[in-house]
């Protein structure tokens, strides 16, 4: 039971509170800006939350919880959905017994991401419903609705957050009564759970029928509402954070705000478009609403191509409405982020840079090694790509260049997507060999120092099973493994890199030194783990 209260909280905090009030059985995910704080806050509120090694595993665990009749919340950043796409598309076919809500946090403008892909395309492609909150209140309210939809139609539901909804703090009124989740139990149901072709064919038809029913329900749902002014000259269709910009940019315009962006309520949209002289669709990211709505033969103006890039704002909405495609004022550049002073990665990048290596990099703090003074990374594509891309370079380049190729990956990223890279490295060894450096700083630093299987601590920093990176790589067939602290003797580190590049074998250096920012915390978690009895007796 919770009290109805007025709170000031971020969208991520509001989602976590809703997860608590809605009786989420298990929250799981992989850290990624801007989604990370959802599970952290859920855990702080007493929720059952855990990090998975990657988004695919997280979603699979979430599917299992929902198969068991529980309520599962799975969180990730937009690019995480790429990793989780395989289970997502078929979980849409199997459906679920309980609830499965997949939160995808998009990052239009790429405040902290490698691309600005639009998760609404996934909802359409996987054929699952999608809700889009525009502030913390809706992040809170819509989670209950997402669970209702998921349980009523036995279908996974996607939940699109964006950076500004995740991280902006706005006022939330929470519910007075918390819900209790149904007690999980197992019911055998082979045709709905085992996707062999004979069972998958009817499953696909069932899925489309569910979507048809949800679209019909959506036509009259309060998720979609008309608000704003009553000047029927211009009406605007918007969703998510863009709705907030629109209300401010055009206070007199009626606005059809879509809380559900897949499937779309086309009857309501057509009625709205016909009720105004000029209807304008304003959306961030891809022209998703534009293409969907226009394909129905509904006449509407849309944003100009230049506004596809970056996040929208009050001014940009005004410019879209005015068909203004003149150049926008360039922001004055601030101070870029950099590798912290005392960061152990600095040593590694100084050495690689000095040696003229071709560095196949990866996703994490160390991607900042691309900036001056190091300029020590040559490629960065996606989680885990450092190894495969590095191997590809080795296979294709002339020998003298191939010998300079080094793959560099962080510890959390390695656990996320690096294991199969090691297998490839051992299995299809390039003729010049290869060198992989795992920069193990003992934490998922970039997203705010989260735990991962390699730290041996769980999401709440309590002790958990520990993945031994060297033992695992050895088991995968990696024979030459060197573990060093690169900061202890940078010259010795440089000599080791040289030797590894000269050997013509596949070599692994684990450069291990805790993150400067995480050092003290890690020590305190270790101290706490050493005295478990004391904590328990206080509980």
């Amino acid at each position: 039971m919770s009290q109805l209260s007025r709170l000031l909280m971020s969208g991520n905090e509001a989602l976590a509170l809703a997860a608590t009030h809605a009786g989420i059985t298990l929250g799981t995910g992989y850290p990624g800006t801007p989604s990370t704080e959802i599970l952290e806050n859920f855990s702080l509120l007493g929720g059952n939350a855990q990090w998975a090694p990657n988004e695919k595993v997280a979603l699979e665990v979430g599917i299992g919880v929902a198969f068991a009749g529980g309520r599962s919340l799975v969180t990730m950043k937009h690019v995480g959905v790429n990793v989780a796409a395989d289970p997502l598309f078929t979980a849409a076919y199997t459906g679920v017994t309980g609830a499965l809500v997949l939160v995808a946090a998009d990052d239009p403008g790429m405040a902290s991401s490698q691309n600005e892909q639009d998760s609404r395309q996934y909802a359409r492609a996987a054929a699952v419903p999608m809700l889009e909150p525009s502030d913390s209140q809706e992040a809170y309210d819509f989670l209950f609705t997402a669970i209702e939809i998921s349980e009523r139609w036995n279908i996974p539901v996607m939940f699109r957050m964006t950076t500004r909804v995740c991280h902006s703090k706005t006022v939330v009124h929470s519910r007075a009564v918390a819900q209790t989740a149904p007690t999980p139990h197992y019911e055998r149901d082979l045709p709905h759970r085992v996707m062999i072709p004979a069972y998958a064919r009817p499953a696909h038809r069932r899925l489309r029928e569910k979507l048809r029913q949800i679209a019909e329900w959506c036509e009259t749902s309060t998720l979609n509402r008309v608000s704003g002014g009553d000047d029927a000259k211009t009406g605007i269709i918007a969703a998510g954070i863009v709705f907030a910009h629109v209300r401010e940019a055009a206070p007199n315009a009626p606005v059809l705000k879509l809380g559900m962006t897949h499937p779309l309520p086309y009857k309501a949209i057509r009625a709205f478009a016909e009720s105004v002289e000029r209807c304008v669709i304003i959306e961030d990211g891809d022209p998703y609403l534009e293409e969907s709505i226009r394909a129905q033969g509904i006449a509407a103006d849309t944003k100009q191509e230049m506004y596809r890039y970056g996040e929208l704002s009050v001014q940009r909405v005004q410019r879209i409405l005015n068909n203004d495609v003149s150049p926008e004022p360039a922001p004055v550049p601030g101070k870029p982020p950099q590798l912290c002073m005392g960061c152990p990665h600095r040593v590694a990048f100084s050495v690689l840079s000095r040696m003229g290596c071709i560095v196949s990099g990866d996703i994490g703090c160390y991607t900042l090694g691309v900036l001056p003074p190091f300029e020590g990374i040559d490629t960065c594509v996606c989680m885990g790509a450092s190894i495969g891309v590095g191997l590809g370079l080795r296979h294709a380049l002339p020998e003298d260049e191939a010998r300079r190729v080094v793959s560099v990956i962080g510890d959390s990223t390695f656990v996320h997507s690096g294991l199969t890279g090691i297998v490839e490295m051992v299995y299809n060894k390039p003729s010049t060999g290869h060198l992989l450096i795992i920069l193990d700083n003992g934490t998922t630093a970039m997203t705010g120092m989260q735990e991962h299987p390699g730290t041996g601590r769980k999401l709440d920093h309590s002790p958990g099973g520990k993945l031994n990176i060297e033992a695992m790589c050895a088991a995968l067939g990696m024979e030459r493994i060197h573990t060093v602290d690169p900061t202890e003797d940078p010259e010795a580190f440089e000599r080791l890199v040289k030797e590894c590049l000269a050997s013509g074998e596949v070599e692994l250096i684990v450069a291990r030194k805790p993150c400067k920012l995480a050092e003290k915390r890690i020590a305190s978690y270790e101290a706490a783990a050493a005295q478990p009895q004391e904590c328990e007796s206080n509980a």
Partner: protein
Amino acid sequence: MHDVVNVVLAGLGGQGVIKASDILAEAAFLAGFDVKKSEIHGMSQRGGSVASDVRYGREVHSPMIPRGQAHYLVILERTQVNANRAVLREDGLLITPDFIPYFEKENEDGTPTTDRRMLNVAMLGVLSAYLDIPEEHWLAAVKANVPVRALEANIKVFQTGRTVEQALAGTRG
């Protein structure tokens, strides 16, 4: 007072910009206003530029302050003025550490007289002299956002900033 008050706080990662905007947002929230606060996280801990928007009033729509619409721009690090100046209204007030020269005084041995980590709260004290948020809510917001051991010192720098600025407010041009 304006329908919506727009404040941008800016500085470098590690200076407590986000903490300061949390305190301001909470104080406005406790005073009963609608509040929205927004910034970009992620890279802020890596020493780069950080700016946070706080808006409060009867009803706030967008969490982001449009260019040229900030009534107050509070800068914790002088080098960050240029990167943020465009957000300020023509009649807006730029508040920099120059407003509190006493804060940067040093003892004879060169050590600071005040813990520099409290610059963010001291600057909020200055800002508070211009805003229609009762002092009790400011104090409650500071209390909710700083560790207990540092509370007394933070309250002190806040109140010094506030009272000195209240005396000087009419003289700023």
